[in-house]
């Protein structure tokens, strides 16, 4: 028996569970939808979600019920729900499992959200590489339509909720909610200037809610078992429920582990994921995807909830925990992530577009042992000129690998530069010695 009660991964952990409609119904699926559609006023569903304390699982951690509450109440035209399945944050691979192993759990969440916000159309924006996931969702939607859970006149109530799968095409930035909407409209995925927010001006300029896969998958459970049950899990009042943490890197058993928020990194890494893969001790870890600043072994007893990780100088983000053992070159690690951000910068804002290129070049020079001491100031200067000066949060995210490694492992940068300087001196001496 697992030590903690599983909620989202419970069904798929059962032997023989295929994720079909039949299996899902047998496990109690679609009872939440039956319980509320046409019976409970939509506003009460929103209130229930608010009371549960559920916060967005995509990265920002915004309270889901509050987000729904921002939709204009008296608006008569169409509203949209978008499910953000563009899972691209390096270190994160939970949505893929939720989609491919238990698609109806997500679908029920989507239908509940549609009902609560009054959306007749929902789009699942899934990253283009998840071809299998998109196919699984398509057939799950067809099953749900045939059973009367989705489509026109759901469960005979006259309420419409059509769900469509829309595949992205390989751009990290489309996980940012306004870039996602642009992409869904058939344009380049460039984030929009906010305000206005999607709640009032979203898809096709209509009121829109964008929620992450894991967020939506929680809804059937909250509706079935009540907000009090949910808000007692984790570390209330601010971080309620469980989270699926994706552990990768130098551990014995990498993978997805669902634990209540508030357990420590030590428990997650050493108990759930089996500890370090070899006898080398842990040197560093990233707590919440590539956008989250690196932490050190001193932070192992930090609790996995939004506030505690923020207090430790990082963020819980998307739940991607990457572990690095002693001997990992931290400058190289920061460069690898910087190369990711350089590749994925959408190019809309100059500080991010030009800054990421400059940062990569400077980092490559240092790693190649051709750096100079001034480069360290250049790095910090560049980072400070990117953060807070871009349309979306990408700018703040891309500086975290460099800023946090400079903070905790500055001597590694200095050593590389000293080696470069020593090599220069030897070269100089040799050329001077020659007649």
């Amino acid at each position, binding site marked *: *028996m*697992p*030590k903690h009660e599983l909620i989202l991964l419970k069904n798929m*952990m059962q*032997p023989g569970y295929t994720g079909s409609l039949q299996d899902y119904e047998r496990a109690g699926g679609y009872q939440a939808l039956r319980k509320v559609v046409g019976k409970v006023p939509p506003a009460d569903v929103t209130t229930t979600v608010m009371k549960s304390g559920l916060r967005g699982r995509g990265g920002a951690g915004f309270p889901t019920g509050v987000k729904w509450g921002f939709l204009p109440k008296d608006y008569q035209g*169409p509203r949209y729900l978008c499910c953000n399945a563009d*899972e*691209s*944050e*390096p*270190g*994160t*691979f939970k*949505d*893929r*499992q939720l989609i*491919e*192993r238990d698609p109806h759990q997500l679908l029920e969440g989507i239908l509940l959200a549609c009902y609560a916000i009054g959306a007749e*159309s929902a789009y699942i924006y899934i990253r*283009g*590489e998840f*071809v*299998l996931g998109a196919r*699984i969702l398509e057939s799950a939607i067809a099953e749900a339509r045939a059973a009367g859970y989705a489509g026109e006149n759901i469960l005979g109530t006259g309420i419409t909720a059509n769900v*469509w799968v*829309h*595949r*992205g*095409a*390989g*751009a*990290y930035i489309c996980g940012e909610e306004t870039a996602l909407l642009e*992409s*869904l*409209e*058939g*344009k*380049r*995925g460039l984030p929009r200037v906010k305000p206005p927010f999607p709640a009032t001006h979203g898809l*096709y300029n209509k009121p829109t809610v964008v929620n992450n896969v894991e967020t939506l998958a929680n809804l059937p459970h909250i509706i079935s078992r009540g907000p009090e049950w949910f808000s007692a899990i984790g570390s209330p009042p601010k971080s309620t429920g469980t989270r699926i943490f*994706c*552990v*990768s*890197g*130098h551990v014995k*058993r*990498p993978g*997805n*582990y669902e634990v209540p928020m508030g357990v420590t990194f030590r428990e997650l890494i050493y108990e759930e994921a089996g500890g370090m893969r070899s006898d080398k001790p842990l040197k560093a870890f990233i707590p919440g995807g*590539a956008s989250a600043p690196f932490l050190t072994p001193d932070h192992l007893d930090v609790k996995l909830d939004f506030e505690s990780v923020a207090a430790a100088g990082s963020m819980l983000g998307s739940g*991607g925990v*990457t572990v*690095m053992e002693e001997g*990992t070159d931290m400058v190289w*690690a920061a460069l*690898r*992530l910087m190369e*990711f951000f350089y*590749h994925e910068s*959408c190019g809309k804002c100059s500080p991010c577009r030009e800054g990421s290129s400059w940062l990569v070049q400077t980092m490559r020079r240092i790693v190649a042992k051709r750096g100079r001491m001034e480069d360290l100031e250049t790095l910090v200067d560049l980072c400070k000129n990117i953060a807070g000066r871009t349309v979306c949060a990408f700018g703040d995210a891309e500086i975290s690998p460099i800023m946090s490694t400079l903070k905790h492992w500055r001597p590694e940068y200095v050593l590389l530069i000293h080696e470069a300087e020593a090599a220069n001196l030897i070269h100089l001496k040799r050329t001077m010695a020659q007649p």
Partner: protein
Amino acid sequence: MLKEKYGAEIAEILSHYPVKRSALIPLLYLAQQDEGYVSEAAMKEIAQMLRLTPPQVYETATFYTMLNLKRVGKFHLQICKSLMCALVGSDTVIGWVKTKLGIGPGETTADGLFTLSTVECLAACGTAPMMQINEDYYERLTEETFDRILADLKKDGTCSLKTGPFMWPEAPRAQ
């Protein structure tokens, strides 16, 4: 012409959206599936279908890395090189391609079978190192499985080592 060949599919795609332009990426995928890449002729035809100008189609097509504007090999090897994969050996995998197929990133073998691309995170960090070949994921690569994948693809055009519905770790946790 896409319209004659895929009339039903196109109508189905268009029916999902209240605004035509939203069908752009799905239609570009359709064109890519047909020819193996997105050709200029296809982009012009799609522009006409959606009442867009060709540059509007082109500006979208060039933004997304999964839309190939040039021909690629029959099997498109996309190896993830982001940090999480790099920590457990993705550079070694790229090295295998170099020694076994003689191609580097961006190159295609002379027989037109394999193209190598290095890509950023594909959301399979717990099962790294990994690669995507056309539509399929291959994870927890070792030199042995890598050889088998290449051999199977050459022989049968497919390989049973591709990942099915994803779950990792696979078995229920024993505590």
